[in-house]
């Protein structure tokens, strides 16, 4: 079936190279969404350790005090910030906010929906995520 319709499949879906920053944001939104979902499940599992009493809780929490744990948490911070920032942009876009106004198209037909407002939204989500990650690193690796 896939062969039949000459579909690009997941590889084409995840190939961010051809269609500008909007397609990169699409991919990052998916990856961070799935990452956060994974973190959320792990988080529920982690906090359930409290049922093993204080010892179990402390034992598991110690994992986040290692270098690997810090790196993991920095990634979570970045995913959270990008996903939230870009998520707000997408929700507005999905409602038809900031996607431009219909007009008689003229060559070279730059699409109004792919406008600077949304590009700024994407870039600022990335920058905010980077800043938050740096702050997180400073706090966790500091001293």
């Amino acid at each position, binding site marked *: 079936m896939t062969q039949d319709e000459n579909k690009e499949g*997941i590889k084409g879906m995840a190939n961010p190279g051809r*269609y500008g920053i909007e397609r990169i944001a699409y991919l990052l939104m998916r990856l961070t969404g799935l990452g956060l979902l994974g973190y959320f499940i792990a988080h529920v599992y982690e906090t359930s350790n409290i049922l093993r009493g204080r010892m179990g809780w402390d034992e598991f929490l110690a994992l986040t005090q290692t270098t690997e744990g810090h790196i993991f948490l920095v990634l979570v911070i970045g995913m959270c910030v990008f996903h939230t920032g870009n998520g707000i942009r997408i929700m507005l876009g999905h*409602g038809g906010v900031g996607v431009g106004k*219909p*007009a*008689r*198209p003229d060559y070279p037909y730059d*699409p*109004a*929906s792919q406008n600077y407002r949304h590009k700024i939204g994407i870039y600022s989500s990335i920058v905010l995520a980077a800043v938050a990650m740096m702050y997180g690193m400073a706090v966790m690796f500091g001293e």
Partner: protein
Amino acid sequence: MAQVSSIAEEQATTPLSASKSVLLRISRFNPETDESNKFMEFSVPYQKWTTVLEAILDVKKHFDHSVAVRYSCRQATCGSCGMLINGKPRLACFTKISELNSNVVTVEPMNNFPVIRDLAVKFERLFDTHQKIKPYLIRDDTELESDEKEFLQSPEELENFIQFANCIKCGLCNSACPTMTTDSSFVGPQALAQAYRYVADSRDKGKDSRLDIIDESHGIWRCHFAGSCSQVCPKGVDPAMGIQFLRGYLLGFRS
């Protein structure tokens, strides 16, 4: 297996003054006999204004008549000649070789459409989904019955949808869409943009029935506003804009 040939100068339709040549790689595939596609390579002379379609037709004329390609208008109007050109969906008749900035031009059939042969793909599903959203004015009365000879519309009302009426059903948007890379049931940006074209038409009264049609699990909700459709559209339709406006109605952002 590559087969490199070059067009004899006296035969080329491109004028002899053409000093530059480009390596044209054409994907060959017959689903009835072949396991997978193979590329054939041709060295083709070109001018600043030579289109990819003209280069393919040169190859057909001088080297291999059996290359399957669909075209008609040669002026971005009929929507026949969509294909992947250097990896991106474009109209072959609307893409100049010179604008690609590459010594190699690779042409392949569009993705997300079944291949008939070589560069020609089947459009049945595109036309089906287009038809599904009722691409015509829906009203209780008709032009013939009413006293007025025609439905009046102001220039401002026309501006609301004229951009979307530019669609030539070339399918480039459906080929670029990330949802269509995996979902065979998605209604697709072409049809969704046309749903908006009629919903936005002041003469049309079919908004509710069209919103019903696209409000299903493989309908509008599979759009993630990646915008690739709008970036490849050769007519400035901007399907992504129309789709978000439609979703605005369904989400209550617009009325």
